[in-house]
């Protein structure tokens, strides 16, 4: 099977994460040929069987590129938070166009489009969450594809993995932790090292976001602080809730 790794607007950290697989990448190469990988290859080819797409389209050209990738691949995997939720790029949607332009000191040569998750433009077969994505989950997905098993998204929160690691709860210590609404799978990396969850994996479907907002308010966080935390990685996914919170 041929695979390709494609980048839209992003920091390309997920591509680097691919290289971070180190010796596992050799395992990977026994089953796959990497045909398209701008960061690591000089000559890139199309079409591919599995396309991993990181980043989010921010202009017309990139949207067309994404549509072409979708046409030329069998399986499209949204790689990392930017591709899944719009990520940090989507934070720009919280401000007005004019405000955003000022950052670059004037109008860019091409009119940018609002950063959106890949789902907004094309059908996405699998999602790999996280900033950057988790290597274990990538191997899980690839194993599932090879063995013909069903790959399931994790429908539970970071809290689950955090409490299995017997950590002290950061909410109890007064941190603004988004663990209870963020999709698990990262093995609670940040909370285990004493840093609150920023929600880089985005909210999971069943998350009780309003309930968590209430918990945070009870701890003493202001509306603005909560909105800022929620829009850091998942503004596009949480638009409605954030709107509701603003009006409340």
């Amino acid at each position: 099977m041929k695979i390709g790794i494609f980048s839209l607007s992003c920091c390309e950290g997920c591509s680097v994460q691919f290289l971070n697989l180190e010796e596992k990448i050799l395992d990977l190469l026994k089953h796959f040929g990497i045909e398209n990988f701008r960061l690591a290859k000089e000559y890139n080819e199309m079409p591919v069987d599995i396309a991993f797409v990181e980043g989010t389209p921010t202009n017309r050209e990139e949207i067309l590129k994404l549509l072409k990738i979708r046409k030329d691949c069998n399986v499209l995997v949204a790689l990392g938070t930017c591709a899944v939720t719009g990520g940090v790029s989507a934070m720009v949607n919280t401000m007005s166009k004019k405000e955003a332009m000022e950052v670059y000191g004037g109008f860019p040569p091409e009119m940018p489009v609002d950063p959106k998750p890949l789902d907004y433009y094309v059908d996405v077969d699998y999602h790999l969450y996280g900033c950057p994505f988790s290597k274990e989950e990538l191997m899980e997905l690839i194993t599932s594809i090879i063995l013909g098993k069903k790959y399931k998204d994790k429908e539970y929160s970071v809290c689950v993995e955090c409490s299995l690691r017997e950590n002290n709860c950061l909410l109890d210590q007064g941190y603004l932790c988004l663990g209870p609404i963020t999709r698990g799978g990262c093995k609670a990396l940040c909370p285990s090292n004493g840093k609150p969850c920023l929600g880089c994996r985005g909210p999971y479907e069943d998350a009780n976001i309003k309930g968590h907002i209430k918990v945070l308010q009870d701890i003493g966080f202001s509306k603005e602080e909560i909105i800022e935390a929620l829009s850091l990685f998942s503004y596009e996914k949480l638009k409605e809730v954030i709107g509701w919170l603003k009006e409340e």
Partner: protein
Amino acid sequence: MLFNPLKTNNEIFITNYGINFTKIVNSVMNMGVKIAKNRISEFLDYLRRRYVLYAPIEKDGISKIGKIESVSEIAFLPYRTKISVKPIFFPPEEKFFKFQKKDGWFELEDYLLQIDEEEKAIFGLRGCDVRALEVLDRYMLSEFQDPYYRKRRENTLIIGLSCDYPRESCFCTAFGGMIPNRYDLWFTDIGSHYFVDIGSEKGRELVNSEFFEEATKEDEAKKIRKINTVEMEINRRTKIDLCEIKKCAQEIKKKANDPIWEELGKLCLSCGKCNFVCPTCHCFDVKDVTNIDGSEGERIRAWDSCHLYEYAKTSAENFRKERKARVRYRIYDKFVFPVMRYGVYACTGCGRCNEVCPAGINIRDVLRRLIS
């Protein structure tokens, strides 16, 4: 046969699990002994040499029951540990076996053989934890036997310790108080000494060692006073009357459509913390973790939580999609279903779930509302 944990009738307790929660000799007949506090570390060292000793330890603000290498590691806490004794017998992640493809066949290597057949002694367990072990034994060792649990659970000596004062969230008096019905030895702090109740033949053998001395009537009175004081303190904080077990279960069962579930469903964050800290929760998920081409891998059992969306997901449908249904299920699985099946509550009043819930759901308040 159903039994009531509140009415102690030792005969009924002796079930045939084959586990030496050793038969209670006759706790009334025991005069009891005592041990001076300055000899306790000698006694524990003696225990450590004869058994694999487990006791409360505290690290980074988290107290749990852990393996003891030297007696100085033991934390003498005035109350129960934050994490229950459950992970010692039923770890969060357990590898069942390893499989490997060889000449078209799969070769298995069972990890059951690698579990140490050690004689454990657990010192410093509280009533809530010991009761929880009784409940776990029912689930894991009666109808369906779990060999992995069994191997760890066999040959375990229970040496309990009464609490000096309760934690904020404790309510063990609703389930029979601080001293459970089955134990080997039970220590109670009475000032300069620990009063020691003997609960089994094995316990009696241990007491015959040099460290113990005969207790007087006065010591026993002191012990009773101590227990009563602490239990009164728990009752003062939270009085829940659950005594008529069957009636109570019926009462709770009737409240299936109570508005309380809707309210709790809005609060609950489905984080599963209450399940993981609960000393009697025992649900698990079994999965295969393989290498990239499936030629070798491991079968792993990991704890699961009934609060999670995927818990009740089947090939046909998810029959507890709504959060309120999941919240209700957990309460029912503590106070209704086990009563119907085994005649016991699967809650022991340790209050750990109250302590960890980020949404502040308090099982005591829930119960109080359900019963009233």
